[in-house]
């Protein structure tokens, strides 16, 4: 028999009754041979359809993970059909300006926009030979990012935050202010919420509305009170649309995903239910590969106009950066913006920790012709000096500030200035890259020029002390 015909006939077949329900998993015995990761429709007794996917298939039983949860399903009356192909999302540019659930179904009361394509939500690996290495500098107007941890178009740069820290504010500020110098481009924002509260979603919607970009934003919301299993599919739906916008429509897409920790927890839940051998902290051994499947869906492709820049947000359990979620993310993403609770407590915004934060793509996107020629050396010098400040502060806390050498005092002063005048800024303050770099030099000018090993003599001649600052104390 013709294979396609056979597939269609089988996908119309409906099995009445299931054999076991456990958490979000449904077990169906005696089916026709169903394919791994096939899309599944579960019809509850009221006739509502819930979607799922096949996670394990054998001659005896198919294990189905139901994205909308299993609450309200019973064994005898649940009807299951297998669709013969993986889950797809119908995509179109018209999805911008709309709100969807994690599966991509409208939750704003409107009708589903007519799709121009149906794409497998799981995505496929990009061939490395087809990638275009990202190098376009995005000015976010935020000094600690632009100056020290530059965001590049096509980068995946997560925010490692903690509960109660202003990651939403920062993500919203980046979304509002991000621009590429000298380019007026077609941009879009895809926002994926996983397990966050309504007010977080509200906050972002309001922020998009205020800056007048709401019609450029597609939201995929799977909120705290939605079934937790839906979080597994939410970022996949969002990224599927993002790929369509970037590579079919030529748009520059910024994808904000929050909170990745909730996503990982759902993954752990399912893994535990299936009795899989856990690796660290109960998370499955494949957490790395699974996260990579999401994070790697970013970047640029040769010969294509668009790009996908990812800004995932995750809250570090207990502010612990070595916890598997931030740890594995850091191994996959192209850097990280790390928040420090202590800076937040001191009233600094954004509370971005100077040292553990990193942008791996910065090196190719800054310097002459991109930002300013002195940028690479300046950033490196700021890191080095600020790292020494941390040592001096530790020392001061032991021996007392008075006992510090004059040079160390200068470092203390530099540190203060750097945090208050360089890092700290208002949530609506949009600094040009030149202003950011000048502020960097202003801070460095508090140190003796001989201390600046990472900048060149020429750079010192040109920028050192040019911005009005107090003279170093006499007596050194």
């Amino acid at each position, binding site marked *: 028999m013709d294979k396609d015909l056979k597939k269609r006939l089988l996908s119309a077949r409906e099995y009445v009754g299931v054999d076991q329900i456990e958490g979000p998993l449904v077990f169906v015995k005696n089916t026709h*041979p169903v*394919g*791994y*990761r*096939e899309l599944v429709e579960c019809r509850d007794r009221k006739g509502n359809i819930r979607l799922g996917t096949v996670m*394990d*298939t*054998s*001659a005896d039983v198919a294990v189905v993970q139901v994205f909308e949860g299993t609450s309200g399903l019973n064994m005898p009356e649940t009807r299951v059909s297998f669709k013969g192909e*993986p889950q797809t999302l119908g995509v179109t540019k018209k999805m911008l300006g709309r709100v969807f659930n994690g599966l991509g179904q409208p939750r704003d009361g409107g009708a589903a926009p007519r799709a121009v394509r149906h794409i*497998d939500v*799981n*995505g*496929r*690996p*990009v*061939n*490395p*030979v*087809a*990638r275009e*290495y*990202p190098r376009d500098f995005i000015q976010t107007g935020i000094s600690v990012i632009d100056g020290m941890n530059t965001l590049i178009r096509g980068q995946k740069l997560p925010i490692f935050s903690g509960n109660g820290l202003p990651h939403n504010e920062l993500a919203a500020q980046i979304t509002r202010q991000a621009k590429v110098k000298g380019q007026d481009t077609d941009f879009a924002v895809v926002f994926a919420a996983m397990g966050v509260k309504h007010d977080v979603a509200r906050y972002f919607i309001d922020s998009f509305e205020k800056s007048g970009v709401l019609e450029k934003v597609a939201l995929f919301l799977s909120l705290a009170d939605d079934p937790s299993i839906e979080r597994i599919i939410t970022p996949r739906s969002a990224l599927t649309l993002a790929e369509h916008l970037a*590579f079919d429509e030529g748009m520059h897409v910024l994808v904000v995903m929050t909170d990745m920790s909730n996503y990982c927890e759902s993954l752990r839940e399912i893994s535990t239910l299936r009795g899989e*051998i*856990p*690796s*660290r902290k109960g998370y499955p*051994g*494949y957490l*790395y*590969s699974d996260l*990579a499947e999401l994070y*790697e*869906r970013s*970047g640029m492709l040769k010969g*294509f106009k668009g790009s996908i820049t990812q800004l995932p947000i995750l809250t570090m359990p207990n502010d612990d950066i*070595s916890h*598997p979620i931030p*740890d*594995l993310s*850091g*191994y*996959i993403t*192209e*850097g990280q913006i790390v928040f420090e609770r202590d800076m937040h407590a001191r009233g600094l915004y954004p509370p971005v920790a100077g040292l553990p934060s*990193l942008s*791996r*793509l910065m*090196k190719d996107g800054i310097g002459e012709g991109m930002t300013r020629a002195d940028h*690479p050396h300046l950033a490196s010098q700021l890191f*080095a000096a600020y*790292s020494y400040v941390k040592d001096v502060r530790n*020392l001061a806390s*032991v*021996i007392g500030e008075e006992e*510090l*050498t004059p040079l160390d005092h200068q470092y203390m002063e530099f540190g203060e200035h750097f945090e208050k005048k360089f890092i700290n800024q208002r949530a609506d303050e949009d600094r040009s890259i030149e202003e950011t770099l000048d502020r960097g030099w202003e801070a460095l000018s508090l140190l003796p020029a001989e201390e600046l*090993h990472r900048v*060149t003599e020429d750079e010192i001649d040109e920028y050192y002390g040019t911005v009005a600052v107090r003279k170093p104390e006499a007596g050194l």
Partner: protein
Amino acid sequence: MNERIAGTVKRVNGPVIEASRIDDALMMEMIFVGEQRLVGEVIKLKGEEAVIQVYEDTTGVAPGDNIYGSGEALSVSLGPGLIGTIYDGIQRPLESLFDQSGEFIEKGLSFQALDQEKKWDFTPLVKKGDFVSSGDIIATVQETQRIEHRIMVPPGREGQIKSIACEGSYTLRETILTLDSTVPGTGDIELTMAQNWPIRKPRPTADRRPLNIPLITGQRVIDTLFPLAKGGTVAIPGGFGTGKTMTQHAIAKWCDADIIVYIGCGERGNEMTDVLNEFPELIDPSTGRSLMERTILIANTSNMPVSAREASIYTGITIAEYYRDQGYHVAIMADSTSRWAEALRELSGRMEEMPAEEGFPAYLPTRIAEFYERAGYMETLSGKEGSVSIIGAVSPPGGDFSEPVTQHTRRFVRCFWGLDRQLANARHYPAIGWLDSYSEYLNDISPWWEERVGPAWAEDRREILELLQKEVRLQQIVKLVGPDALPDSQRFIIEVCTVFKNAFLQQNAFDDIDRYSTAEKQMRMLAIILLYWRRGNEAIRRGVTIVKLRRMKVLQEIIKMKLTIANDKVERFDRLEAKLERSLDRLGAIYG
């Protein structure tokens, strides 16, 4: 299609397939699953059942699908055309996959690891009637401007040459040599320029040789403090962002190996793109040719199927051994071996094997050992010398070196470059910590340095390491009571170490001059810093203050010498040295 059906799919659990109705399938046999012909390998046989790992995404595979056998172990194709190619974990050329499926990799694509159409200029080295055996070099082909590919008799074959193609252009499909086999009853053996070899089996050699030649990497902290020998093994463990990949890239670019095999194992797609963009543009300092002319890339990025990640390491090392057998020095980088170990863990978990530590299978240490054992400095079957050096990155969870992969790797490597989070945070790169790292090759390679570079090398190196060790203790005191509590003589140790760290250890991979240093430049730089130490120490003893020493103008020049004195201008160190001597003389004169 005239294929052998080896069994049928019984269960699909991610990349692991349980198969039934198995009878003649071979262990490690390469098989194809379903009508899409997904590539897989038999990894377990039990009665009528088998476990198969599939190297492609198994979406859509269903119970009852056919499994086709190939009759051969999972192998790589070896021959001219490997160099300059980027492959996936099972040696599918990514360019050819791109031609078939575009930007995104589809499943079930057909492939030829080596170009079968391309004609190579063939120069025979043997003639009709000669007797040749395993590993003998029978011909050469100029594979790239820089690499002469030496065509060898495959291991296990020997006989008298019945006919050999004359000099000319041939494709890999054409028979170039016919042997009258010595093994009775096995008829003639026809050879082409390519051969196959199973990836999990080390290629044979004649003998192992001692490791006494350093692999010069151009990275000062490595070559001077913790050197690697040609044929040696090293692990680079480090948390994320500490510089594993950058270090591997730097070595791939500048080390003095003939051939580089770079395996991106479960890491970022953009990093492979970066290499693909950058290497063809970079010029190898020793030959003046593009770096791509000595490089083979293997990419199983983190979003590619996990089982191919497990295979990628073996694909890479087999290719490395093949060039070693031709008499080349090969360096292989695996970034990161932890992803390979995790792939083992995932597959083992899906097979429901009993886990040992942290979910890793009990055979993890054996696998790690087997891999590193494939390194070495060898006498080849044809009597040449060749080596494979393995440089493996390790990505410990949470940056904690006590985890199983780091610990087991440590047992089987003889050199250890531990990346330090503190250094990386301060943007001190390469962030190789000088307290945790070590090299067991030191004594064996010291004679090379002393003969070729400078007689004082080992002694200078020892002295600076000793200072670094002293400095740690002094810093502990400083942390408690502040630097003022130390006498100038001790503060000067800290001062010299600071200079050494800034001027020598730190090396900027992005600076055109600093990105690599020749052995000679390294030795001269070290000598100048030690001159500052020895004479400065003397001056302090005579009453010169540390502030005066620090204020010497020449010190700024010393700190920036790495950036200002190019590799081919080492004579300028003479001037700098003289200047330092003069400044010190002047200080000495004042205090007399």
